[in-house]
């Protein structure tokens, strides 16, 4: 009996050849076909970048550069925001939109400034992102700008079915716009509402395009992918402050290398009262809120 069974399971020569051919074709397609930017070999990344630069320069009629700058060794980025200084002016939001080529129509804004009631403290159920008085700050209100918190224990990267989003070595959570299938699982997983979906192709007027791009950052996104704050990867990997930090009129936004003991960030962590948003979720953000007073 046992012998019969084994015999039935045997393959004919023809069947084996077909399976082997299919496996070989599959292997070839995977090895030579498109790859995630996360694991793409350097030479192929260069080629892809050259293609993008050509394509974007043509599309926008200006000389576009796409940086492939990688993480700097010994650098772990962190951000700190002074809640006692923020006056809700939304200058950061506009600077971010301009720097990162976010869609103007429909609007995509990576930073959302929440107006909250001083009597209630940080209460997301009572937060208003649509405040629009003649002058800020309004009496009795305080402001909590939110964007990607670049969590060390990021829920979004865990749920992505295609591996299109991950944390870089310098702590920036990035998205591969070519591998994102637009399932929006990451948006459901993110407790901060930091990820935004392109329901239609983003529209940015050519004259407003920021031509200094990074392949994991502000290069144009297609329709149907998710995008979010990258801590201005195209600037910060070149040593510059993020656009929002430079735009803040009150100087409430601080950015730097958490591993550098002389950095502004370390001074804040060591000397100020620091809090995390939704700390109880154990997402371990690298975006800190503090009271500078």
């Amino acid at each position: 009996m046992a012998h019969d069974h084994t015999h039935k399971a045997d393959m004919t020569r023809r069947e084996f050849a077909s399976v082997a051919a299919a496996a070989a074709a599959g292997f070839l397609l995977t090895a030579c076909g498109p790859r995630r930017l996360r694991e793409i070999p350097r030479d192929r990344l260069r080629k892809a970048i050259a293609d993008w630069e050509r394509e974007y320069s043509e599309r926008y009629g200006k000389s576009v550069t796409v940086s492939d700058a990688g993480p700097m060794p010994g650098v772990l980025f962190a951000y700190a925001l002074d809640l006692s200084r923020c006056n809700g002016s939304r200058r950061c939001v506009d600077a971010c939109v301009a720097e990162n080529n976010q869609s103007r129509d429909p609007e995509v804004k990576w930073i959302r400034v929440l107006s909250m009631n001083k009597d209630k403290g940080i209460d997301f159920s009572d937060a208003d992102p649509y405040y629009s008085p003649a002058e800020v700050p309004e009496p009795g209100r305080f402001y909590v700008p939110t964007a990607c918190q670049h969590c060390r224990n990021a829920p979004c990267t865990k749920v992505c079915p295609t591996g299109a989003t991950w944390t870089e070595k310098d702590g920036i959570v990035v998205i591969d716009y070519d591998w994102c299938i637009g399932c929006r699982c990451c948006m459901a997983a993110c407790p901060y509402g930091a990820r935004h979906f392109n329901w239609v192709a983003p529209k940015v007027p050519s004259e407003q395009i920021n031509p200094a791009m990074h392949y994991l950052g502000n290069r144009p996104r297609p329709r149907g992918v998710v995008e979010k704050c990258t801590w201005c990867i195209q600037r910060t990997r070149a040593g510059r402050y993020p656009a929002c930090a430079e735009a803040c009129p009150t100087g409430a936004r601080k950015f730097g290398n958490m591993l550098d003991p002389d950095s502004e960030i370390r001074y804040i962590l060591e000397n100020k009262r620091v809090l995390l948003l939704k700390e109880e979720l154990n997402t371990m953000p690298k975006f800190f809120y503090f009271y500078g007073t």
Partner: protein
Amino acid sequence: MRRAARLTGIAFAIAIAWTMVARGGTQTPAPQGAPTLPSKPSAPPAEPGVRVEVPPPPFSDGIFPCTTCHNNDMPANRARRTLTDMHTDIVLKHDAEHRWCLDCHDADNRDQLHLASGDPVPFDESYRLCGQCHGEKYRDWRAGVHGRRVGQWNGAKRYLLCVHCHSPHQPRFKPMAPQAAPHPPMRPK
């Protein structure tokens, strides 16, 4: 090796400059001058190799140098009073009960300020004057935590003087109009 030597050179130059400033030097205030920002109180200034820049103090148009008018022909009137002829646009809302012009402005050399000790301070180092009372803010500002900095997170940056954001006569930060509110999320049609 050469880099180390250069850094040492820069640090040395900065140290000399700082010593001159600390001695209350004789230099006239140069609005274009970029003093080096000390990284730690009472220590020699800025980390070597890190260039820090500051824009000139925000004088009202045509007001500086003060000695254009306040020269030998105009003897200093040290009596505390309400000004009626000139500078009437300045309303002091900065502990006005206890203070008036000559507590910060120097009557002997109008082109500079002076500390409580009487030591002169050029206008482009006015933070030393502010730091006498606001020591906590001064410390944070030196660390780069109070106030805005622009430039490189790991290198050259530009900082602002206290008076770029806070008018010294009315230091409260002015309310401003917010940028446009976001549109509510769009849904597919």
